[in-house]
């Protein structure tokens, strides 16, 4: 697959037109990343990490970065939100902070700023660009070069932030082929605790592109609950990367939910870089029609006594295509690693397709690692059993689909999110089939 | 036969055995009792040569040889057998194959002819009757999927087949119901000869109703705090381990006075 020369040039041109003030304190970083993107180009399916996902629909369109947010009233947001008034909420519209829609609750030891104003003031943002890999990963390079806005969250040592911090990325672009490049940085210092939720929502049906990157640094003993909810609209192309680095005894709980977008790809990666660190990486994808949903996760056990748990579940209907690629690496020094990974897929239609590649790469001998993957359809025996108890076929199917999803949704510890996602699953599973997300 | 002097042993940074003296002569049965965490299982493991324990002081001689200088398999070949408290599972390896390999390794070390599978079957049939073991167990994987009682009986079958001179039973009674306990104890008693010795490690006295010891030692805090005849076990049963510990601290207080 060859890509048009213009695809990369288009973004290089966009980069060159950034004004100096906007490039701000990250000018050199942006320049380096743009060079890397120009060198790498869009990945092709020959790239093992993109074996099952073609980005041609992105590479062959010319998306344009928007310069300012579309103006929205608070009422237009309500249906997409599941937070409560005591949460800190930052709303970004078309990639830019919309202060009138946001509310920040002050909390001692917690700094929450928006990236764009930090950079615009010429300021440096420590750790920005040091965690996510813009050297070899094309979309991270593209985001780094063109990053617009996002949250920079720092929680001081031993501070516990009880209420979640909700980052909402709304796409309301007034013109088709718009693009936004959200960029977040979450730093939890030693012993800090916080919950960060990222929601991606689209308000229009025109095609648009979201390329986001979230960098996470967890200090010793820190614990972060990170939830990403991807509910983009049907014309969206969405490529997101969450990249964490964990020091000793830190714990990352990650959940990635994906049900929107024509094509979406979410990378969730962590480096367990301190002894005793652990992560739980869960996720769920639910697609239908011609949607394509891809999750790629990487857990790198780099130090001894590290633990990882991972469950991803997929429900696929229509002509949809689900992809899961989960990598677990165990470096030679990571003795006593304990890793478990599973990916289960439920096919509801004979035209749906799933490609899964759970992958273990192990270089230490004293480890316990298992992984498993299954693909199948609803259990006929269970269906019959439920019907014999008086449920009709649609009810039985709906219940079984829900049950399939429930055990991973159960793992979400933020109740409003859990309830919202459970409701979303119920709402979308009608008559034992998946409705289109935008219906 | 076995002489332990001033034995100290650690696991990691923790000292578990803090100076053990124990002599076992030919034909004697010694019971080692003590509360949880007193070090009695450690003593059994150290005699067998478990690599997780580090001996920091003292000596153990067996028939005049320095036991601590021997590999675990050399100790086994020299006639020391440990019936494990938690027998290990080896998936995919049949009991028959495992036991014949062990039997032949021990025979070879003694300069005896190795036996072929058919001859070995004869040996096994007889030994399995000792503990009422179903012959189908021979084709099952070593301890894999065995119930707790089956595992313990399997240890005794191995004991019977390998015919050691010094048997160490490490809490062989734990997890056994009364019938299984009797079967296991009967098996051990049938193997008893004036040439052979045993160390019976147990938390409870009830096993000693069936395997009657010549001596009883009470281990607490990594030391033998009291030794006596079989009646000591009954006293312990009656008064509990607190009795010994109280007596100890009373004696300690007295000596300071």
């Amino acid at each position, binding site marked *: 697959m060859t890509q048009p020369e213009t695809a990369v040039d288009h973004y290089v041109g966009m980069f060159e037109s950034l004004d100096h003030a906007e490039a701000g304190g990250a000018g050199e970083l942006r320049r380096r990343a743009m060079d890397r993107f120009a060198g790498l180009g869009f990945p092709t399916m020959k790239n*093992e990490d993109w074996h099952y996902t073609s980005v041609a629909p992105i590479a062959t369109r010319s998306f344009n970065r928007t310069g300012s947010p579309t103006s929205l009233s608070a009422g237009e947001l309500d249906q997409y939100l599941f937070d409560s008034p005591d949460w800190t909420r930052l709303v970004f519209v078309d990639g830019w902070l919309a202060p009138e829609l946001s509310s920040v609750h002050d909390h001692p030891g917690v700094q929450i700023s928006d990236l764009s104003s930090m950079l615009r003031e010429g300021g440096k943002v420590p750790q920005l660009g040091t965690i996510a890999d813009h050297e070899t990963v094309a979309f991270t390079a593209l985001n780094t070069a063109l990053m617009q806005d996002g949250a920079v969250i720092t929680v001081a040592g031993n501070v516990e932030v009880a209420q979640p911090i909700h980052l909402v990325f709304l796409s309301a672009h007034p013109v088709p082929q718009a693009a936004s490049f959200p960029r977040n940085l979450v730093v939890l210092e030693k012993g800090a605790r916080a919950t960060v939720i990222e929601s991606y929502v689209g308000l229009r049906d025109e095609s648009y592109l979201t390329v986001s990157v979230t960098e996470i640094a967890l200090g010793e003993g820190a614990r972060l609950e990170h939830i990403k909810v991807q509910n983009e609209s049907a014309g969206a192309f969405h490529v997101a990367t969450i990249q964490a680095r964990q020091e000793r005894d830190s714990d990352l709980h990650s959940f990635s939910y994906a049900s929107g977008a024509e094509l979406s790809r979410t990378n969730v990666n962590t480096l367990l870089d301190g002894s005793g660190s652990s992560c739980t990486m869960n996720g769920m994808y639910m697609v239908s029609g011609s949607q394509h949903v891809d999750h790629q996760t990487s857990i790198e056990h780099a130090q001894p006594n590290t633990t990882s748990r991972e469950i991803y579940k997929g429900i696929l209907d229509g002509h949809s295509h689900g992809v899961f690629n989960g990598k677990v690496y165990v470096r*030679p020094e990571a003795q006593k690693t304990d890793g478990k990974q599973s990916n289960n*897929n439920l*096919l*509801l239609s*004979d035209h*749906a*397709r799933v*490609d899964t*590649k*759970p*992958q*273990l*790469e*192990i*270089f*230490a*001998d*004293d*480890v*316990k*690692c*298992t*992984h*498993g*993957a*299954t*693909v*199948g*359809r609803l259990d006929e025996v269970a269906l019959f059993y439920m019907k014999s108890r008086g449920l009709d076929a649609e009810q039985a199917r709906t219940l079984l689909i829900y049950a399939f999803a429930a055990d991973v949704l159960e793992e979400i510890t933020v109740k409003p999110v859990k309830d919202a996602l459970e409701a979303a699953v119920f709402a979308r599973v009608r008559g034992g089939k998946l409705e289109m997300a935008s219906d | 036969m076995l002489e332990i002097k001033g034995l100290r042993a650690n696991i990691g940074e923790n000292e578990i055995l803090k100076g053990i003296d124990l002599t076992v002569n030919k034909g004697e049965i010694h019971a080692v009792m003590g509360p949880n965490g007193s070090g009695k299982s450690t003593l059994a493991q150290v005699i*067998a*040569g478990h*690599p997780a324990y580090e001996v920091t002081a003292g000596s153990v001689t067996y028939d005049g040889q320095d036991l601590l200088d021997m*590999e*675990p*398999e050399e*100790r*086994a*070949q020299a006639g020391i*057998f*440990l019936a494990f408290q938690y*027998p*290990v*599972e*080896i*998936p*995919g*390896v049949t009991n028959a*194959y*495992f*036991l014949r*390999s*062990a039997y032949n*390794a*021990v025979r070879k*070390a003694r300069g005896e002819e190795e036996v072929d599978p058919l001859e070995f079957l004869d040996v096994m049939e007889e030994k399995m009757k000792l503990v009422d073991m179903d012959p189908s167990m021979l084709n099952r*994987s*070593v301890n894999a999927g065995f119930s707790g009682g089956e595992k313990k009986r399997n240890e005794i079958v*191995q004991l019977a087949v*390998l015919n050691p001179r010094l048997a160490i039973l490490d809490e062989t009674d734990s997890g056994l119901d009364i019938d299984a306990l009797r079967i296991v104890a009967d098996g051990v008693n049938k193997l008893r000869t004036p040439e052979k010795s045993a160390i019976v490690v147990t938390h409870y006295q009830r096993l000693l109703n069936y395997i009657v010891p010549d001596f009883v030692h009470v281990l607490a805090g990594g030391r033998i705090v009291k030794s006596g005849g079989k009646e000591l076990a009954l006293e312990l049963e009656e008064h509990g381990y607190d009795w010994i510990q109280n007596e100890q601290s009373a004696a300690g207080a007295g000596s300071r006075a």
Partner: protein
Amino acid sequence: MSTAIESLVNREYQYGFVTEVEADTIPRGLNEDVVRAIAAKKDEPEWMVEWRLKAYRRWLTMTEPHWPNVTYGPIDYQDMIYYSAPKSVKPLASLDEVDPELLRTYEKLGISLTEQKFLAGVAVDAIFDSVSVGTTFKEELGKQGIIFCSFGEAIQSHPDLVQKYLGTVVPHSDNFFAALNAAVFSDGSFCYVPKGVKCPMELSTYFRINAADTGQFERTLIVAEEGSSVSYLEGCTAPKRSGNQLHAAVVELVALDNASIKYSTVQNWYAGDAEGVGGIYNFVTKRGKCVGVNSKISWTQVETGSAITWKYPSVILQGDNSTGEFYSVAVVNNRQQADTGTKMIHIGKNTKSTIISKGISAGRGNNSYRGQVKVMPRATGARNYTQCDSMLIGNECGAHTFPYIEVQNDSAMVEHEASTSKIGEDQIFYCKQRGLNAEHAISIIVSGFCKEVFQNLPMEFAVEAQQLLGISLEGSVG
């Protein structure tokens, strides 16, 4: 590793000797003249020469693939000898005429070509470098219409069958090494089991590389007609040499309606020394096609040799209700590398596949399982079960699992499970307490780990495989 595990001494590779025979060797290098020269040596008909040339020209347009998880220096295809045969081998000679020196070689390898002496029930085709030395029990098999002979002989005596099936499973253009093989393959075995015949004995090919600097490119084709069945064994050894030698074989299996083929390999090519000098590059394409309904193809492999093993014995499940199986034990020690697994391509309805893979890594070896399970849109009711377990011995080796599961039919059921673990210190101590030394303990535990694979090997092979495994792992602990 625990200090209690004593270091063990490496035993010599016992098949590492060289046979002194006068060889008929063509000059180094590869071009169309070399392809023609190989064909001429074998007095091949024009259609065969054309097929080779077609493959050669295709090969020229291809590049050597580098996607497996193995590393090696560049292979100079012009510095290799593509044909070497003992001068004493006469085409189509009877066994009585075989050079006694070659007979002695096979005796040393434990393979007797004298029918009276050989294990009853196993027919052998002995391949020495580029040619077949002889095939046993040919006549007896012939009585039932079974053809078992060298590939060279099959081209002469059964051209219709060869033409009908050659390249139907692994086309000449399939991949770089398969194309190379198609251009220069020198010999191999051919087997044809007619309709309704259950082959009464195990068929076996023993491959021996002897000459230095030669590549071995053999080709095996097995066709099981409707309702027939056959079990086939393959063994391989090579001398110890400090240079690397390329072995790029192709195996094609065709199973028609209700036919079954069982293919077992014990691969013990020279693995190189402890520092990774020398050894065979074993880059092999093996594939079976279940053409007919209810047909079955089963691969069992025990891979202990070779510096690099790179192969994926696969099954195309085309016929409805057909079954594919893959049972594998792959052991790497010292500097060995293996990237092996299988592909199960479900095309027909109600097709079933089972994959059991056991990888053992020791020394500084790297072992990768790479497997693809593909369920095509029409493969209603397809089932796959995959289990791949890895065991690591020591802390300088690696175990990798790369399963590719691709499902396009909602009625499919695909399950994949994998685990990685170490040999338990407790297991070793338990064995030692029963009088077994560390080496013996590990060999017992490892054969237990591999049991599900060994029990699928024919009996004679199972014993050899277990012994080989013990030898391969020697020196791996300490």
